[in-house]
């Protein structure tokens, strides 16, 4: 028999290494040939979109197009340490470091422009679209390219650092401020359980994710789709078949992960409530986008068939077994 159920899951997630451990990101910004700007940072692109989002933060701060920014993050010889691409911390921590580095860079450019333009002070100078100019007398202007040519090539640079604020928890009580910032989300699903085969099919999903501010909405949605699929695999598919320390399902023909056929068009809602300590208000969402999905599925399974699943994974065999045990228990009660 096919039964339909609906369920909800909520979660919160604290960003960063946490618990008072120094969580440091560093970035360097340098003027390059042709008036381009290089951002050098050890933040890794693992597929989450860090390279794009971090470039956008730099471009916003320097008021220039992303095309004129060269993002260098591959080689330890050239880039300062920006910590792990983990803990959903790159947008918040490294984004902040880049913002600080770019602000320092802007100030440096203003100082240099003041000298080259023979001005008395930096007040009234604006940095925008690859040039430094005096707002109320725009004839006083110097392009990034001209400045590079006047410099001894590649020595105009600035650095930035961001250290996240957390407070170590007290050992006996756990009182402290272990993470910052926190992100929030809610996911609702509607699914169909085939009580004969144990197959669960998701029919509808609505997912609302707090992001502080979305630097790049499409990339946020990409994370939500990916997080949803990963949670689907976690709860319904993936099984290492671990016995006495041995992984028996050690290839993708046996260790099943969802394919495009198993996923669906999720209704994704981006909720914005900017965080004042974050770069342009943006919080990290890499991990959170996986978290509320699993419990929403489990609550929906209960709503469909009245069976509580307290052990993962809910593979078809296990679900059929749970249904049978539940029927047996009900029979005994009668």
């Amino acid at each position, binding site marked *: 028999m096919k039964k339909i159920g*609906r*369920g909800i899951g*909520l*979660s*919160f*997630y604290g960003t960063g290494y946490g*618990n008072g451990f120094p969580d440091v990101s560093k970035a360097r910004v340098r003027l390059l040939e042709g008036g381009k700007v290089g951002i050098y940072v*050890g933040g*890794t692109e*693992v*597929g989450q979109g860090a*390279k*794009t989002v971090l*470039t*956008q933060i730099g*471009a916003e701060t320097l008021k220039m197009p*992303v095309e004129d920014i060269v993002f260098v993050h*591959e080689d330890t010889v050239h880039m300062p340490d920006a*910590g792990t*691409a*983990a803990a959903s911390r790159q947008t918040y921590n490294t984004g902040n470091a880049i913002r600080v580095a770019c602000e320092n860079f802007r100030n440096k450019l203003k100082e240099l422009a003041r000298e080259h333009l023979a001005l008395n002070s930096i007040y009234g100078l604006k940095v925008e679209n690859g040039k430094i100019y005096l707002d109320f007398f725009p004839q006083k202007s110097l392009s990034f390219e001209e400045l590079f040519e006047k410099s001894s090539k590649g020595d105009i640079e600035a650095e930035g650092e961001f250290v996240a604020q957390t407070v170590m928890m007290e050992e006996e*009580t*756990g*009182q*402290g*401020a*272990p*993470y910052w*910032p926190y992100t*929030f*989300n809610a*996911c*609702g699903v*509607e699914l169909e359980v085939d009580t004969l085969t144990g197959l669960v099919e998701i029919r509808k999903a*609505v997912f*609302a994710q707090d992001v502080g*501010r*979305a*630097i*790049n*909405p499409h990339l946020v949605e990409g994370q939500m789709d990916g997080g949803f699929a990963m*949670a689907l695999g976690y709860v319904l598919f993936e099984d290492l078949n*671990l016995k006495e320390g041995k*992984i028996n399902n*050690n*290839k993708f023909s046996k260790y099943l992960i969802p394919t495009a056929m198993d996923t669906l068009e999720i*209704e994704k*809602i981006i909720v*914005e*409530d900017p965080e004042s300590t974050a770069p342009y*208000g943006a919080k990290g969402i890499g*991990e959170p986008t*996986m*978290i*509320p999905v*699993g*419990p*929403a599925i489990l609550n929906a399974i209960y709503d469909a068939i009245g069976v*509580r699943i*307290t052990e993962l994974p809910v593979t078809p065999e296990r679900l059929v077994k749970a249904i049978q045990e539940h029927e047996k228990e009900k029979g005994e009660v009668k």
Partner: protein
Amino acid sequence: MKLEVVGKNILRIDALSKVTGRALYPEDFYMEGMVYGKTLRSKVPHAYIKVDTSRAEKIDGVIKIFTHKDVPNNKHGVVFKDHEVFCSEKVRRIGDPIAFVVAKDRKTCELALENILVEYEEIEGVFDPIEAMKDDAPKVHGDSNIVYHFKIRKGDVEEGFKNSHVIVENTYKTHMVDHAFLQPEAGLSFIDEEGRITVIVATQYPHYDREEIASALKIAEDKVRLINANIGGAFGGREDISLQIHLALAAHELKMPVKVVYSREESFLAHSKRHPLIMKYKTGADKDGKLLALEAEIIGDTGAYASWATNVLRKSGVHATGPYFIPNVKVDSYAVYTNNPYAGAMRGFGATQVPIAHEQQMDMLAEKLGMDPITIRLKNMFKKGSVTATGQVLTESVPLQECLERVVEKMDFPVGEKEAY
């Protein structure tokens, strides 16, 4: 604030190179005179070992077989240095690295691996974290398998349960899973034009890899260079060291480019897994559905090595309440060694597991109270100014209610009715 670039759907900067196949992953790098490496791994979960490489060394085309004797500092690990580059006396899990063969081609590597003699003196293993916590359990490291114990004590849970109208108690179990990233581990090492040991790899943290390589080889960090190629997914599975030190050691000793490519099967053995948790939950609420108390005991199996176990089980503990204000909270979370594959970082890092428990508890409390699942959440959820179980004040950017309300609207969940949905 007027924003020009932030908030725009800029096309991924790496999109074109990835969709056209021009993006290079570590496996795609080749060099003149390149040789290959392959790792010998433990076939048993717990044993003392003796290793004899002499027969394998005589095979034509074998250049060098590295074991623990060749590593200046054989220890590494993200928090505790409990991993060995190559096991010296004992293996603690199936897949533990024992030796690393470098040969002229992959076939010769495989032949050499078959000819390394490993004498396993098996020891009783422990695979259940609850068993592992007992005093008489076989010990994986040192004299206790308990790596970490985290506590939250807030208010008085006994009092909270006494005043509760409904109490729900359950034990939840989550399982160990793999990151299943698409690109198995691979890498290439060589000495660059400035004499630096250079490793091309896919890693979540190049500066950490550099630090561990320098530490293992006892050389200065500026003599090591990490080049991060394109990365085919990570999800936490590329935080611990896998092949980085093996590659660096071989290039350093042999002064020739060395390449390693793991198969999918080896990849399953090489990196961490998600911590399986056993979560014992007791949650109480008053007649109106206000949460009064939570008592949770969370036991995490970190397998043979600690990796991030302390931080993961801490995160589980901190997030154990879910996004709800509860006045009385008692949480104990533990990380425990066993002879299972080792667990480490994976997307959500301990905070992915606990909602499997707390969100089902919420629904069960609601059902007992004759309340719908949305209403009970609205009554208890974090809002601006809420205080968490660790005493932290959520001063800003707490739009949880908006998240819930927008989902409720789109799902057309009935609110304020007796029945669940």
